[in-house]
């Protein structure tokens, strides 16, 4: 049985500013690594985060339309270049005609291979990151290079204090099981370990990222795969990453 959750869940809402989880579709080939898509809405303007591949697109569009007119989607933020992140780019450009694409400058030259030739709509994110203005809020594209992609960014929303962490925090759920919020961190950590040891290349980029985000006021960590970690679970997750030990090449050599 495939999991399908086609209704969104609002993670933060102060009236003018929202952070929304956009639902879930599971393909059997994903083998438990289910992809999350999110949207930030501020003053009636929208930004989609890692809106995903073709087969999730219809649900993403329907859920976006529950909150704003698709023509008010100003921005599409892609953490990196994987198909589960960027696969539906062509149709996204079609249904969100005013949206600017934000992606690492490393990947801009590869986008034409998806059939999207309108380079004018792409705003490359430089290696050091950048601010992205959405309505009255300034979101921050935070460098997360080599976690796992060499040109990789996370997104911090200072209004909701939510940090989107792309593949960091990914978990592999057992068959027919899924949850949106982590309740028991220790048991959830077991579902995250395999992914982090194999998909991240080595320890150094992770330590550098932990330094980078240290000053941020984080209430919630929302990954592209896996479950959301709030408050004390977010803190436990950062501590868990610190203590993860060898990963990637170092782990494989062992």
């Amino acid at each position, binding site marked *: 049985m495939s999991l399908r959750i086609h*209704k969104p869940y609002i993670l933060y809402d102060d009236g003018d500013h929202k952070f929304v989880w956009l639902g879930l579709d599971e393909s059997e080939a994903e083998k438990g690594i289910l992809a999350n898509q999110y949207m930030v809405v501020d003053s009636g303007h929208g930004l989609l985060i890692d809106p995903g591949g073709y087969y999730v697109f219809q649900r993403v569009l329907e859920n976006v339309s529950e909150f704003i007119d698709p023509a008010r989607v100003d921005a599409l933020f892609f953490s990196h270049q994987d198909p589960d992140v960027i696969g539906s780019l062509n149709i996204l450009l079609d249904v969100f005609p005013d949206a600017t694409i934000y992606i690492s400058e490393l990947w801009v030259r590869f986008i034409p291979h998806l*059939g999207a030739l309108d380079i004018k709509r792409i705003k490359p994110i430089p290696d050091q990151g950048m601010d992205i203005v959405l309505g009255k809020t300034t979101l921050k594209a935070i460098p997360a290079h080599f976690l796992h992609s060499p040109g990789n960014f996370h997104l911090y929303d200072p209004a909701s204090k939510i940090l989107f962490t792309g593949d960091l925090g990914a978990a592999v759920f057992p068959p027919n099981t899924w949850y*949106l919020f982590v309740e028991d961190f220790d048991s959830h950590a077991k579902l995250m370990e395999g992914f982090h040891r194999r998909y991240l290349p080595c320890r150094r980029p992770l330590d550098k990222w932990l330094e980078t985000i240290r000053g941020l006021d984080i209430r919630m960590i929302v990954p592209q795969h896996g479950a959301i970690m709030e408050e004390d679970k977010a803190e436990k997750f950062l501590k868990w990453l610190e203590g993860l030990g060898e990963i990637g090449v170092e782990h494989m050599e062992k």
Partner: protein
Amino acid sequence: MYNSICSYLTVKQMFKKKIEVPIGIDPINVIGVLCDKGFVLSNMPYVVGRSGEGIALEFRRLRIFRFRDNYEVLIECGNGSARIRLRGSRSTIEMIYSTRSNGLAAEVTYDGPRKWVVSKYVVEIAESLAREAEREARSKRAVAAAALPAGTGSADYSAKLASISWVTKLIMKSVLIKNEVRVLGKGKLHSYIEELLSSGENIFRKYPAIYISGDGDDARFRMLFVGGELRGIYAVVGDKEFFGDDKPLNDVKGLVKLRVYGVLRLPD
């Protein structure tokens, strides 16, 4: 004080409300969709967990108050009504839908603790499920219409162009060849398209089909040309949909964003 808080957190209270949901199609078709357990599981709002066919719902108010429970979903149907019952370990939510001349009536019941947190959401759940079921019933009708052969013997893609999943497949198999913004007066879209199609690039020779989509001030449209012939038009003007009719294109005006795709292969 302590006792009153504890009783608020644990004592079961009942909430009951009758609502009406206007429906724009035959409501019996919507009841049919609500009887599909797979549909209900996929379209239930406030789901934060799934385990087999069980679901967890979580309701939050004011960032302080929360209520979460795990539910088994039970559905009974018959005599033009659908009874959807969520049986939880601490609470029960029940929605009984029946048909009315212009829509659905629903009796919504919540029995459990933290009524103040949950009651607002159970009404929202009942309304949301009815609206999603209407959308699903409409979509099924559009798919059925699209499957009908056109009178001329050549397929009419107008109904398919209304389906975002079909358009997704179409664009997957296409190349974006033009993306521009034009200021068009009322009734000028036709001449723009004629100009485009007769341009020196001769895009019809390069691609077996051409898909054009556009958005204007209060109208949007999708068109499909196959082998140089117009084979489908879908337009939305205001909140009205039009299938296979080129007259609404006269209403596409203002700052119009246009995308032209060369279709490499038509989807099934």
